[in-house]
């Protein structure tokens, strides 16, 4: 292990899947990127931006599948098309804040977010903010945040994109985009549909001594979405933008293979999100505001045996208002203020009164200070009131250019806060209205470098160390003799680790090579002091200590391309006292494609992908097997 760590430490600096696009954290370019309220502050905070090439390559996949390759994130999936959650730096999935155009879209009931319900096709920009120094107006992102958005910049002529894909296990995907500009108005319409029988093969090694190849039962799913964005440029300084997103899915929920039960579980969900955004840029004043309405419906049905059934319905409606003002007239100081209001209204068959609501107000003040050309400092403080709970959070960060254009040091410190979800408080049975808020204090420091070798090879390297304590960590545990579970503030967790990422780029003649990689070491230790509980001092369940990803891509004349990616996920303990674990696994994916011009206006592209090429048996969630080798073939048409 020590040797491995050393070798990776030496090797990994030369690899990075996602470029850390510096421009996105420099104040002067943030405004350009932020058509809607987006990134702000946090000059010393680690951020990752997934490049367009990766987004295009994974256009037919879900956000969960995209982030599985080449990030330091921990992903827990129940299988293809099934629920998938993501966490940062050894925290839980509830500690990941997910934002669409800067508006949090985490369910107010669950807290966590199902990343299998976001098609990458709807995303043009995605930023990962690592750690609890959230750049957004609301608290709660103890582990980190993921903000994504579409892009709706003007185009000269009508643009059309159509993707058709077929894959193993009767998986079919269709996607289309229409984009045009008419005068001051630009419209982008995207549609996406995927369905799969999802009856993939796996090896059942757990039910009996006979290792049998079986097909997954009751895992079929359909999902579709429609996204519309309209931008109207009122004037040079004023822009109005409207976005609407309808996302639906209907899926069977397969059972654990340790259980020989056909429970016929089904879930249907519909999410509707709409947002109106106004942006003003004039002189030294920048102002942006947005108003959003979010609605989520989830129907759950379970037919079990001849006589038992379970049906419940959960609906939430949320109204969110955001406003931001920034003044950029001073040379060394940039102040900004953000305000947020959110109202959540939840109707659930699982709440005693079938109804709960929550009001949240927050105000954030941020001051960036540039005392020297090589030093940037910023700090922010947020005051938030959720129902009758009032609390404050803060973050400080700094960036120091040690050797300009070669070596840079970043550091941040933050105090964050997360209130229990409505399910934590009111779910029946088990909800615990006496829960305390979770609190975190975290630090991180990064050393990064960008350099060129012989003007041919470009290297981007970054190494980060982080250390964070979370108090009052909320855990659901068995109550009494285990038939009912309840959330409690049992744990205190200390999460420490290191992240290394890098990228080498090389151009030789018509060939462009890119070698990328990420390595993460995460120690996330339960430090709760319950007498006699063997969980004390043990790694949090489902957080791998070691994880790496490496990729190689070559393109020839922008027509032919080949991509190889390998991802290793280390042993993950599945019980609190490390008694049980899932095996480590390595996946190898190959993908190649060719793009040709039919005429000046028309392009057509073909690509094929081999996923899990060496037929590795693996589980993301224990006893929920993932598919063996899968093949994908795609045709893309562009106008």
């Amino acid at each position, binding site marked *: *292990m020590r040797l*491995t760590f050393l*070798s*990776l430490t030496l*090797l990994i600096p*030369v*690899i990075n899947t996602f470029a850390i696009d510096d421009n996105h954290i420099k104040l002067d370019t943030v405004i350009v990127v932020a058509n809607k309220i987006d990134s702000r502050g946090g000059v010393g905070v680690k951020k990752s931006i997934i490049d367009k090439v990766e987004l295009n390559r994974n256009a037919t996949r879900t956000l969960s599948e995209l982030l599985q390759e080449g990030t330091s994130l921990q992903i827990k999936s129940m299988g293809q098309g099934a629920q998938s959650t993501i966490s940062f730096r050894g925290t839980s999935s509830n500690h990941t804040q997910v934002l669409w155009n800067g508006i949090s879209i985490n369910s107010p009931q669950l807290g966590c977010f199902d990343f299998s319900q976001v098609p990458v096709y709807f995303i043009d920009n995605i930023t990962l903010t690592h750690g609890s120094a959230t750049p957004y107006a609301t608290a709660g992102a103890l582990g980190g945040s993921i903000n994504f958005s579409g892009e709706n910049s003007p185009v000269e002529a009508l643009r059309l994109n159509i993707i058709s894909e077929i894959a193993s296990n009767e998986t079919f995907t269709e996607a289309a985009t229409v984009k045009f500009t008419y005068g001051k108005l630009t419209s982008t319409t995207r549609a996406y549909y995927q369905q799969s029988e999802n009856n993939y093969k796996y090896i059942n*090694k*757990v*039910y*009996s*001594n006979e290792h049998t190849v079986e097909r997954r039962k009751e895992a079929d799913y359909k999902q579709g979405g429609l996204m519309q964005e309209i931008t109207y440029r009122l004037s040079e300084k004023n822009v109005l933008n409207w976005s609407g997103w309808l996302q639906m899915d209907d899926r069977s929920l397969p059972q*654990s293979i*340790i*259980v*020989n*039960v056909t429970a016929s579980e089904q879930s249907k969900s519909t999410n509707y999100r709409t947002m109106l955004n106004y942006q003003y840029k004039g002189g030294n004043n920048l102002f942006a505001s947005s108003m959003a309405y979010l609605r989520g419906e989830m129907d759950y049905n379970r037919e079990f*045996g*001849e*006589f*038992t059934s379970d049906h419940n319905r959960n609906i939430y409606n949320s109204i969110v208002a955001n406003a931001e003002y920034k003044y950029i007239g001073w040379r060394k100081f940039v102040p900004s203020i953000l305000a947020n209001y959110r109202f959540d209204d939840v109707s659930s068959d699982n709440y005693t009164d079938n109804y709960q609501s929550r009001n949240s107000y927050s105000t954030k003040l941020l001051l960036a200070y540039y005392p020297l050309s090589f030093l940037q400092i910023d700090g922010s403080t947020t005051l938030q009131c959720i129902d009758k709970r009032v609390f404050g959070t803060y973050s400080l960060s700094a960036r120091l250019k040690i050797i300009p254009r070669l070596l840079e040091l970043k550091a941040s410190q933050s105090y964050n806060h997360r209130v229990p979800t409505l399910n934590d408080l009111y779910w029946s049975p088990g909800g615990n209205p006496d829960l305390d808020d979770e609190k975190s204090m975290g630090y991180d420091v990064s050393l990064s470098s960008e350099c060129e070798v*012989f003007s*041919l090879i470009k290297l981007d390297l970054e190494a980060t160390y982080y250390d964070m304590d979370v108090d009052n960590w909320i855990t659901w*545990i*068995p*109550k*009494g*003799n*285990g038939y009912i579970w309840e959330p409690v503030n049992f744990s205190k967790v200390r999460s420490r680790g290191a992240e290394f990422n890098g990228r*080498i780029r*090389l151009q*030789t003649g018509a060939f462009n*090579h890119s*070698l990328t*990689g990420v390595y993460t070491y995460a120690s996330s230790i339960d430090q709760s002091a*319950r*007498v*006699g*509980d*063997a*969980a004390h001092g043990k790694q949090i369940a489902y957080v*791998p*200590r070691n994880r*790496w990803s*490496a990729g190689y891509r070559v393109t020839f004349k922008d027509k032919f391309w080949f991509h190889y990616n*390998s991802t*290793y996920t*280390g042993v993950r303990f*599945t*019980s*609190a*006292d490390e*008694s049980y*674990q899932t*095996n*480590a696994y*390595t996946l*190898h994916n190959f993908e190649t494609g060719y793009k040709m011009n039919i005429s000046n206006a028309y392009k057509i592209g073909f690509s094929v992908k081999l996923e899990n090429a060496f037929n590795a048996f693996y589980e993301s969630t*224990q*006893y929920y097997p993932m598919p063996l080798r899968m093949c994908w073939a795609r045709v893309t048409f562009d106008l």
Partner: protein
Amino acid sequence: MIKICNKSFRFIAMSVIMALCTVSCDENIDYSTFEPDVKDGYRAIVINEGQFGYGTSSLTMLNYDGSIVYDVFRKINNRPMGDVAQSMTKIGDYLYVPLNNSRKIEVFDSETFQSIETMSISEDVIPMYVQHLGGDSIAVTDQMWRQNSCKLMIMDINHGTTRPILRRYVSVPGQTYQMTVINNKLFVGGSQLAVFDIGKIDSANIRFIMTDGDETIQTADFSKLVTDKYGKLWVLTEYWVYCIDPVTEKVIHTIDVGTLKVNARVSSIDCSTDGGIIFFNAHTSVYSIDVDNISQPKEPVIAPKVDSGRTIYHLCVSKENTIFMCDVLYGSLSRHTIREYDLSDGTQIREFPAGIFPHAIYFK
């Protein structure tokens, strides 16, 4: 220059990819060569229920020298035993463990723990306890509650044959848990204490033991049905301990334990090796009843000081007449503790970690 760089780049690229592909940071567990240390034979096996839905049921082996082997079934067979084990029955040379959420019964050799067969059960039956009825026949209770009844399964042990394992279902009111055979009769505990003649186990021939007040007897959920040295049947309920004559099927003694805080979900009853003393637990204390001098127990024979949040999930009497208690820390999803007590003075002899939710103990 470009050629040199191309070569260098290829070298670096290939090196990095190969290094990353071959690196393995963590050790996967492979028990395929494991052999248990049972030279002198084991003393007891703890059946651990595990965390529901997580497949963490396990067996903990306690050897005579006090050493333990955790999760012995997994280590021998290189796979998990299944989900939610709550009992183990020895028939001939084999041990039978029903895994209720896995809908199966694992059959394995009682000495080597090598798996003999995995008996799959119908999905709409939750197998709880196995009782040998003689010959190749067994009865298996069902916890599934459907239309106020459950299905008692009469099955064949057909290892190595092609005979179907299920002979028939017998509908029994309420839920069914532990069983015992006395005087060629099958007694079935649960929502009602039912009795069948071994040769006539069917719905038409079901009878129920009633109290003096003509009420049904609902036994503590997972508690044994115990036979004393006189062949009488003893059962524990939430408020009473009943002694029943298996011949007449009448209650002959009723002991009021209502003030002792018996928990019908987790309390249990057992008897000494000679069948002379009945033990049961109420909360964390153990009480006794002398079958030759039956009276209402007032003071516990063992009353260990335990931390709040703990409970006794099960109680068993060993062949050495010591008491084993499954000590569970509520809310913990870690391995829990077994404590052994000396009956003569109530002192603790040993404690050792078993598995997640230890539920029953089998003594060899």
